[in-house]
């Protein structure tokens, strides 16, 4: 955990204090992304090739008992498998065979690598090719790694989407310029954005991931893409290899972020100022209306982010600029300087951003700062509450639709609720 690794700090071009920390991390691994991804791609199945720990993680993080039969499972490796690799591939084929027989509606199967499968160098991409051939044309098999040694929490979605990119059909060379929105969004949010783009006259607009395995959008030289999530570094790289061009934008969190995000598309597609105004004004007005009551609750509140989802920077920007909150520390597991450039430009000068984590040191800083609200993972929330600090579970920010104008109020409410609750309780 390199507890003694020096902390490096420097001021970046936006006047932010950026520190890097190494040490114990309290974050989920990329397998956790399966929890929302399997709901997004409705005919996909996620098979983790891993250990009992992986199975236990997913069911603990997802409360899996609520599902009759979830569209994810774990192929648990045991001692026998670890004895010889050839045997392991046969075993995997057998497991997949049983699974596909049991779930005939599955069209896309992801073999998801884990820490143990990575450490023993089990080649899941070859396994995926082999299985794809044998199961064609009914089931396509892809692979990606959600292992904790390679991915942090939301990077699992990045790895999953990146594995889809080579499968996307090629756009015709003479195709009209199209917009691709990248990153899993709630269906309701997707539909809202699609309506706004359509009112601006932007089209065709497609989304990655698509809701069905067979409907993944095409990509090519004429594709302009907008990231809807800030954690998609590998996916972006893969799209660019296919010729797509990224539209630099802030992320669609809060009214300002949503406007900036839509504006990036409007500019790229030559939408007139008047038409942009007309398409966004109703949403903007509703967002302002929804946000107003929370501003009083969140203004001047001091907020501390533990690193978790890589959403921290855009969330901090939203809380600071639209809600008037003060940022004590913004922890993030990984800072993508390129994708977050527009966001960082909007943060107040002097904001302390901490990339990486040394858990105990960070908890010391948090205790010392005594923020009004601490955004942290599930493992830390109750202990900090017990120390008298109000907390917001960060995982809820991924399970709840928070993007776009019509969710801006919901987003603010997520942060306001712990504070409101404290004013209500008299015990």
């Amino acid at each position: 955990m390199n507890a003694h690794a020096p902390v490096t700090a420097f001021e970046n071009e936006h006047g932010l204090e950026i520190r890097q920390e190494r040490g114990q991390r309290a974050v989920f691994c990329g397998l956790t992304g399966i929890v929302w991804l399997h709901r997004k791609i409705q005919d996909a199945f996620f098979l983790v090739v891993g250990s009992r720990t992986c199975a236990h993680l997913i069911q603990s993080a997802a409360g899996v008992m609520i599902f009759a039969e979830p569209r994810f499972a774990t192929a648990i490796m045991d001692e026998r498998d670890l004895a010889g690799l050839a045997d392991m591939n046969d075993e995997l084929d057998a497991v997949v065979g049983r699974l596909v027989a049991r779930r005939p509606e599955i069209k896309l199967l992801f073999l998801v690598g884990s820490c143990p499968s990575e450490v023993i160098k089990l080649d899941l991409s070859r396994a995926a090719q082999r299985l794809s051939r044998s199961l064609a044309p009914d089931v396509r098999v892809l692979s990606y790694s959600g292992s904790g040694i390679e991915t942090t929490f939301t990077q699992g979605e990045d790895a999953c989407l990146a594995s889809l990119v080579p499968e996307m059909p090629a756009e015709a060379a003479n195709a009209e310029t199209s917009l691709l929105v990248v990153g899993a969004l709630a269906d309701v949010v997707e539909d809202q954005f699609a309506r706004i783009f359509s009112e601006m006259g932007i089209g065709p607009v497609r989304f990655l991931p698509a809701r069905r395995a067979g409907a993944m959008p095409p990509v090519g030289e004429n594709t302009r893409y907008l990231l809807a999530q800030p954690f998609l570094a590998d996916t972006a790289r893969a799209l660019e290899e296919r010729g797509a061009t990224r539209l630099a934008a802030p992320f669609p969190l809060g009214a300002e972020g949503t406007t900036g995000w839509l504006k990036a598309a409007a500019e790229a597609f030559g939408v007139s100022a008047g038409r942009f105004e007309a398409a966004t004004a109703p949403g903007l007005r509703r967002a302002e209306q929804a946000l107003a009551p929370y501003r009083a609750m969140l203004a001047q509140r001091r907020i501390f982010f533990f690193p978790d989802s890589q959403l921290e920077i855009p969330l901090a920007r939203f809380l600071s600029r639209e809600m008037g909150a003060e940022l004590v520390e913004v922890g993030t597991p990984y800072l993508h300087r390129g994708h977050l450039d527009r966001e960082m430009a909007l943060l107040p000068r002097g904001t302390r951003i901490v990339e990486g984590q040394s858990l105990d040191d960070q908890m010391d800083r948090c205790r010392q700062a005594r923020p009004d609200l601490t955004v942290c993972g599930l493992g830390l929330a109750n202990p900090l509450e017990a120390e008298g600090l109000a907390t917001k579970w960060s995982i809820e920010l991924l399970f709840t639709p928070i993007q776009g104008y019509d969710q801006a109020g919901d987003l603010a409410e997520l942060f306001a609720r712990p504070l409101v609750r404290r004013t209500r309780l008299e015990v």
Partner: protein
Amino acid sequence: MQLTVWTYEGPPHIGAMRVATAMRGLHYVLHAPQGDTYADLLFTMIERRDARPPVTYTTFQARDLGSDTAAIFKDAVAAAYERFRPEAMIVGASCTAELIQDDPGGLAKALALPIPVIPLDLPAYQKKENWGASETFYRLVRTLCGPKAETVGKAGRRPSCNILGPTALGFRHRDDLVEIRTLLDALGVDVNVVAPLGASPADLGRLGEADFNVVLYPEIARAAGQHLQKTFGQPMVETVPIGVAATIRFVEEVAAVAGVDPAPVLSGAPSRLPWYSRSVDSTYLTGKRVFVFGDATHALAAAQIAATELGFKVVGLGSYAREFAREIRAEAALHGIEATITDDYLEVEAAIQASAAELVLGTQMERHIAKRLGLPCAVISAPIHVQDFPARHSPQMGFEGANVLFDTWVHPLMMGLEEHLLGMFREDSEFHADAAPSHLGPGHQPLPPPSAGEGGPRVSEGRERGAPVPERSPPLPPAPQAPSPAEGGGSSGSAHSTWAPDAEKELKKIPFFVRGKARANTERFARERALPLITVETLYDAKAHFGR
């Protein structure tokens, strides 16, 4: 390689964490990649603990592999010692670190810390959570229990015992402990040390001072108890005091070992269960078909109580604890059934369906299975869920525990008098088959009809809150071996038999809360006899056939 959709037990290092988190002054350094820290939330969210578990994870990453994971581990141990100053440490590896073979025990030893550092070898690819808890507790006891205490004369002092087994994240361990302490105190027996829950390493050094040991949860504490028996000659009381009869046996055993009189504790009516079970309203419990599944301790106890203290008929018994398969099989044989030893919940689901149970006593997973099958259910065992840590005192052990069991197992069922009233008023608008239970209020939409047991009356359902995921089940696919009832499994025979209109009409006269069972039984009866048409005759033939 095993296809696992859901698992009853975590990996063995979770068991070690349950022991470490239960204790004071102990720290666990776990060589594990980032992500394995999810385990903290089991303790802080499910059990609502107010502090992080005393665990430091090395959270190594891919870039560290092959270079300096061993150094990372050593640094983590040194830093954890400096920060937490524990009395003792346990060190070990999770599944991934086991593969890179850094030898946590050797690395920690090389630091020559001035405290006991106990290496744990928990094979993650062979063993599971309860085994890990047992092994960890055994290692701690073996290392820290010290030399045999100076024998203090028994004269002039109360006999004393240790209570072994309660852990963090244990199913009602908190409340069981209160009951057992009360019983022991009433018997005039002092409690020397409770471990692991609340014990410090120094407390483990005092284990030898007790006259005997009480092993509450054999899954966790039998190995440690056996070690103490061998080392200190301390007798071990192993009767698990769940249920009235078992509690009486427990009290008598403790009294015999301690040389005290059990009579005062046993006199009067220490539990209400016997009278409640004999009172006439309980007549309707007679021969209710019950399916039992859980860890070994609770499943064994539940089978005995169900049969002999509530008058149920045990039609299924099983456990995910393979280590205790022999005991479970022996108990099943007493009920004339075959035990279900599996950790595949789909197999359990199939067994429950095949048993035609009317009540399921199981884990949270069986509660969900029962919900799908429209059966009432009570939870008797881990895996643990936020609902298993109720705010109120709710023990399973001792005489109060027996009262709790009576309530929690019987309340999901229709009460006796209620059953008659419903029969009388069954055509009343409020009681027609499609009406939702009245306590749900007028706004409540009835659930889609569960075919295996229409009505599934009064299954007490709390809000699911294992984790903050919106609830929406994906569509149920038909499973080839075990047709899911929500997919029409209850009437799966109708592919072969059709209902004659008069038979269908007759079926409607049967009270709705047993109608589903009548339908399923009749269809099964017809299927087994390859009858193409179900007539009124068939209905009553089936009734006679399945009648008890």
